């Protein structure tokens, strides 16, 4: 059935948005609403599922079906929903604490099963909702209310985690670059399988400027590397720097001076092995520019579609007699007493 063209505003619910003014979540909400109409999916067939956190308030602001579940468990709720209703389009919104701390287990396993849904992990490197404790993505030494002498734990890198969990689609974008976010969201929504998207998101109240190196006009060209499939890894204001592989390690080289584009690492998001994608995920500021865009997009069967194939059955009849039930109850060894 053709769907009438929707506008971004059609996806706004009647609930007042309650994030702090200036929070990066607003931009993400706006861009998601902008992206959805182009997908051509009716509102009633879209479901947003979230855990708990500032980011996880997201479903309340979307005029689709939505489920604001419990802390860390969005991936599990969404997986069950998709298994029961494979035809729905499901989005998961989670935070760095929600998805990688309390919900780390579920994130790994949903990704490994490749349940067909799009996961947006809003990474602000802080616990926003609970007012500013350090998170599993906070850097070592991060001073917060619960780490007054600086965080001791070594952080997780969401993209590396997703690749380690056998993700079939992995991408990174950031809140203020709407165009790039739009591109990544479209790609993620189109991918069949778990699409894992890390979104750098500024929490201007408890961790302001965590990603300023990547958002600041003056530095962003040198600190970001935009990935393009089949293209060499080039970055810099003057596009004169590149990433070359030195044995198994990436290194920054200046183009010209005896180094040509052909000497650089070429991006291949469809590589069967995730090794290079993982290598990219290990490039961190300030040593390296941080890669943005699609790291990996490969095809793999989706759990819920395979399960659905196994479980085709007749629908229960409206009548009182149900041959399927009778066959089930009479299976195995039976005997008759007259």
């Amino acid at each position: 059935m053709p769907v009438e063209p929707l506008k971004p505003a059609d996806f706004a619910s009647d609930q007042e948005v309650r994030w702090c003014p200036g929070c990066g979540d607003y931009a993400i909400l706006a861009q998601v609403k902008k992206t959805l109409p182009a997908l051509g999916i009716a509102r009633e067939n879209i479901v947003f599922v979230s855990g708990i956190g500032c980011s996880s308030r997201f479903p309340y602001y979307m005029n689709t079906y939505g489920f604001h579940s419990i802390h860390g468990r969005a991936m599990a709720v969404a997986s069950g929903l998709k298994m029961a209703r494979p035809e729905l389009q499901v989005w998961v919104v989670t935070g760095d604490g929600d998805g990688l701390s309390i919900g780390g287990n579920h994130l790994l396993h949903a990704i490994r099963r490749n349940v067909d849904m799009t996961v947006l992990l809003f990474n602000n490197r802080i616990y926003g909702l609970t007012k500013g404790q350090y998170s599993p993505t906070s850097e070592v030494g991060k001073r917060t209310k619960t780490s007054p002498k600086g965080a001791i734990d070594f952080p997780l890198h969401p993209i590396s985690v997703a690749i380690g969990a056998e993700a079939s689609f992995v991408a990174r974008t950031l809140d203020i670059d709407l165009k790039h976010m739009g591109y990544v969201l479209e790609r993620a929504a189109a991918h069949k399988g778990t699409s894992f998207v890390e979104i750098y998101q500024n929490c201007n109240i408890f961790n302001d400027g965590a990603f300023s190196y990547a958002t600041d006009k003056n530095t962003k060209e040198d600190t970001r590397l935009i990935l393009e499939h089949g293209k060499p890894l080039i970055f810099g204001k003057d596009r004169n720097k590149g990433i070359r592989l030195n044995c198994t390690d990436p290194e920054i080289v200046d183009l010209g001076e005896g180094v040509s584009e052909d000497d650089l690492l070429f991006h291949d998001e469809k590589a069967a092995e995730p090794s290079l994608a993982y290598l990219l995920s290990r490039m961190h500021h300030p040593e390296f520019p941080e890669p943005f865009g699609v790291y990996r997009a490969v095809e793999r069967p989706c759990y819920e579609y395979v399960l659905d194939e196994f479980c085709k059955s007749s629908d229960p009849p409206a009548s009182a007699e149900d041959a399927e039930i009778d066959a089930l109850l009479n299976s195995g060894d039976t005997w008759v007493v007259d």
Partner: protein
Amino acid sequence: MATSTATKNSAKPVKRQENDTVTVRFCGDSGDGMQLAGTQFTNSSSIFGNDVATLPDFPAEIRAPAGSLPGVSGFQINFSKFDIHTPGDRVDTLVAMNPAALKMNYKDVVDGGIILVNEDAFTKTNLQKAGMDVNPLDDGTLRDYRVHKLPMGKLTTEAASDFGLNTKGVNRCKNFFALGVVCWLYERPLKPIEEWIGKKMGKTPAVADANTAALRAGWNYCDTIELFPQAYRVAKAKIAPGKYRKITGNEATAMGLATGARRAGKKLFLGSYPITPASTILETLASMPQMGVKTFQAEDEIAAICSAIGAAFGGACAVTSTSGPGIALKGEAMGLAVMTELPLVIVNVQRGGPSTGLPTKTEQSDYLQAMWGRNGECPMPIIAASTPANCFDMAVEAMRIAVQYMTPVILLTDGYLANGSEPWRIPQSKDLPQFPVKHAVSNNGEAFMPYKRDERGSRPWAIPGEKGLEHRIGGLEKQSVTGNVNYDPDNHQAMVNERAAKVANVAESIPDLKVEGNPEADLLIVGWGSTYGAITTAVERANSGGKKVAHAHLRYLNPMPKNTGEVIKRFKKVIVPEMNMGQLIIKLRSDFLVDAKGLNKVQGKPFLVSEIEEAIESALK
């Protein structure tokens, strides 16, 4: 394959004494195949026409050292010409395959009872492994019993070595030899067992033939050497006509859930994580894709219940099954299901706790956790199955209550019901209740109110895909009617009241509490769950012995049947037997202000009939 007419005529006419009821226990090392021997003996007995009840008892460690005391596995079966309700208190015939098994079990044998031992296993090493310095077969330990020492290893080798199996393979057949012996002793037909062997082992004919030969050799051995001066017979029971099958509690639960979903006009989704003694529910439902049943082995119990909640939001009849430790993990998500008012069945196959506790042993100690073990005011309907077959009816009931009242429902069973079995008269689908779900549909663009309640107090079940009903739910407190997030104090009070009232309303749809036994008695035994069999038998015996005792068994624990208070207050004395330290009794005393007395036991074992008889005796003194 050797031919035999063993079941038809024995070499010499045997004198067979008629018995009403017999209890047999097979025990040996966990590698000895005792569960299999027991199940096959049960099948043969039920097909023969007895009423049967069984109690498997296996070790928690699958790979406990061979021959050790923790490695002993047992299977008890009670078969009778009457209606029976328990696997029997004391054992008439014990089969012990090694010293450890004998040591752990012989004290349960009645005086003068039969003990059959596999003599070959009574070696010095095996005796040491069982911590015995002297051989109990020689030192008078067993003087009160009729002991038969059979070289089962040797005899099995003689019978089963011609089929090409290696020594180990041949030796594995000795459980069938032992089974053949006990079948002869009680005149059990071999045919159903041979058919089973053909079906299950037919793919490797050598194995099938060797086991069949061992089975027959056991039978023929008794015949030939006149092992027993006396044999027995247990006549067929007077059983209601119909088609029967044997069923364990977990099979019944699984079938009840699958059936319940179809009676709701829906597909079943089970999210579960393996745990003893609940795993076989997941395994059984995993084998039913043809019923449209989707099973999901999640990464943990939290994911299991959350996936079920997601599936329920999508419109499936959703279930999660587990045991105590898993329930502990599911607590927060159970609250989410209460808050979002989605239908969900939570099966708790209770086992000994706390913590990992006694994984393979039974207990009823999770009732108060089911009542009150969650944060906040978090009421849920709770129902409990009383026998293995009753698990089917209660699973269907759990599904009915869940979809009619839009609520999570806890179904309590336990390890004893889960693994115990009984003959089950197979119901016909047309006689089973039907409760088709009607999802909310959009009403000409009228604003949808996801928390507007119907006369039952339940909210509409609107599922994704329905245009115009797009709405958001979650664990935050809801505004009445609109379902929007709301923290207003009066609204919270109102919503707590509404959720409680809805659960209380379930009482309108459940049967009254029945009084069994003698309703004129002064003494009432109130039970719940798997104590049904032992209480029923004890009460029957007391009444036929001239005492006056009544029995009421609660299958609905929250809310309770509307007449519960009236029933309980009618009696001068109330005893509440429970396999816990007194849980239902707390609720009965506080709700009805009755001076009930507890009879409590937490030994990982069901009540013996005699224990309840003694309690009756002393209460009536």
